């Protein structure tokens, strides 16, 4: 038994070292990416960027600039109409549709409109990613209760979304997105419906996840949120393309800057 535990510690140490070693590698790579819906004009044009593993990014830009479309490409709700998207060291254009769920399980998403399942309780909504991943009820119970407590909804576990306020729904959506400790967390205006205090708590949650190795991408207009995360990097979208490629350095990053193309 003792050697088993020692072996376990060794494995954990190796995993941390591997994670440190990978810290500068790209988790997302966009190369000349364009996106159009149907036969309309391109909503995203010539996007070229890399997101480092373990990075924290804010995506800003005016309404209609294409932030949500870019996030859809990141969380695999859309395929680009041109260009190349790489995710987790895989070229996605080569990945068959059947393999996409495995990628999606490594991505947490906070939707702008929450997208909670209305006939499920807050507990069941938060537990859904774990259940989809095949966790048993015993494995689900503890983490979900803990996460609900963390977002201040421990006493609302059995409430349905319709009975929750907008802010509470948003917190449930965030809890659902982070419950699996994803490799990539994508959030679309995650603090749009919460007060300043809760926004701060949520940012702390994102920062804590980021410290554990999760790459965070947050689309937001909230300058206060951006200011509260000085280590994060900025990406600014305007009219479907990155308006200021060097803007990624506007918020001084904690670590080395990602490679630029």
């Amino acid at each position: 038994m003792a050697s088993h535990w020692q072996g376990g510690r060794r494995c954990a140490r190796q995993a941390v070292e591997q994670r440190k070693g990978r810290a500068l590698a790209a988790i997302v790579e966009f190369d000349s990416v364009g996106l159009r819906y149907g036969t309309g004009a391109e909503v995203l044009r010539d996007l070229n960027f890399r997101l480092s593993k373990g990075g924290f990014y804010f995506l800003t830009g005016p309404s209609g600039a294409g932030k949500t479309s870019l996030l859809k490409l990141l969380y695999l709700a859309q395929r680009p109409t041109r260009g190349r998207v790489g995710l987790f060291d895989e070229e996605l254009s080569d990945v068959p549709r059947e393999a996409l769920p495995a990628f999606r399980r490594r991505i947490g998403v906070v939707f702008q409109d929450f997208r909670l399942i209305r006939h499920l309780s807050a507990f069941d909504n938060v537990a859904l990613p774990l259940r989809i991943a095949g966790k048993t009820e015993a494995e689900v119970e503890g983490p979900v209760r803990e996460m609900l407590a963390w977002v201040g909804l421990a006493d609302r576990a059995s409430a349905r979304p319709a009975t929750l306020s907008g802010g509470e729904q948003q917190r449930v959506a965030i809890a659902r997105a982070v419950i699996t400790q994803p490799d990539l967390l994508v959030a679309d205006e995650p603090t749009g419906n919460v007060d300043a205090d809760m926004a701060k708590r949520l940012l702390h949650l994102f920062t804590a996840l980021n410290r554990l190795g999760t790459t965070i991408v947050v689309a937001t207009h909230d300058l206060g949120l951006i200011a509260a995360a000085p280590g994060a990097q900025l990406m600014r979208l305007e009219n479907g393309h990155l308006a200021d490629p060097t803007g990624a350095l506007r918020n001084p990053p904690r670590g080395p800057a990602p490679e630029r193309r």
Partner: protein
Amino acid sequence: MFGWVTAPAPERRLLSEGRLRGPTLYVIAIMTFAMVVVAAAGLALANAAGIVARGVDSRYAIQIDDSAALPKVLATVRAVPGVIEASPVPEAEMRATMERWLGPGGLGDELPVPALVNVGLAPGTDSAALGRRIEQAAPGVRFVAHSQVVRPLLKSLRVLQWLALALVALMAAATSAVVILAARGAFDTHRSTIDVMHGLGATDQQVTSLFQRKIAIDAFFGAIGGGVAAALALLVLGGGASALAGDLAGGPPLTSTDIAILAMLPIAAVVLAAAVARVTVLSALRQSL
């Protein structure tokens, strides 16, 4: 987690607001009822045809207009190897039979009554050779196979039997169509749930299992209801039909194998519904990313 037959409670809750319980269940019940009754009719017809065909197999009749030729014909027939029976129908019996059409005493004593001989042959006996010998012995005598007489009836029974089979197939197709509509409706109703599940990494199989299970449950209750109703209807009808079949064909309308086949039909309806639901939902899912 997503074994579709036995799903845990959290998984069942995912589609708990579904509108699947409704017309689908009742339509499947009605379809199953009709399918079982029509299939029972088809099987009964097949049995009746079989019984009739077996009953007239190797049975022949010799019709003699001039009853004076009867002894010669009888002697000729009985001398042929393979003839196991050659019995003339008594004149009184002939007259009684004809009185059904002509009325009592309608035939009169002065009218000659043709003679009729029932002949039974052993299997493998050359009936054509026997016919030629009878013709040589008594020209003008008709040697008729019973199967020839009942051929139109047997043909009608076979047509009805195929018609019943076609109806069962049509009803199975209609059931499939209902399930396709139900699955598409349910898919649209739960589109947002499906999108969220997909976004969280659910596979097509996981999503499909939810719908497959839900529709299979509806189909199960519908098929059981329809099957039980059909069984009751057949029991009620069966009493009269048994007597009728016994009179007409000399056997029961349905054998134990037939009853087993009929009992399998509701199960087949459930399997069909589940399979169709699976294919429908999978093909709908494949249209999304």
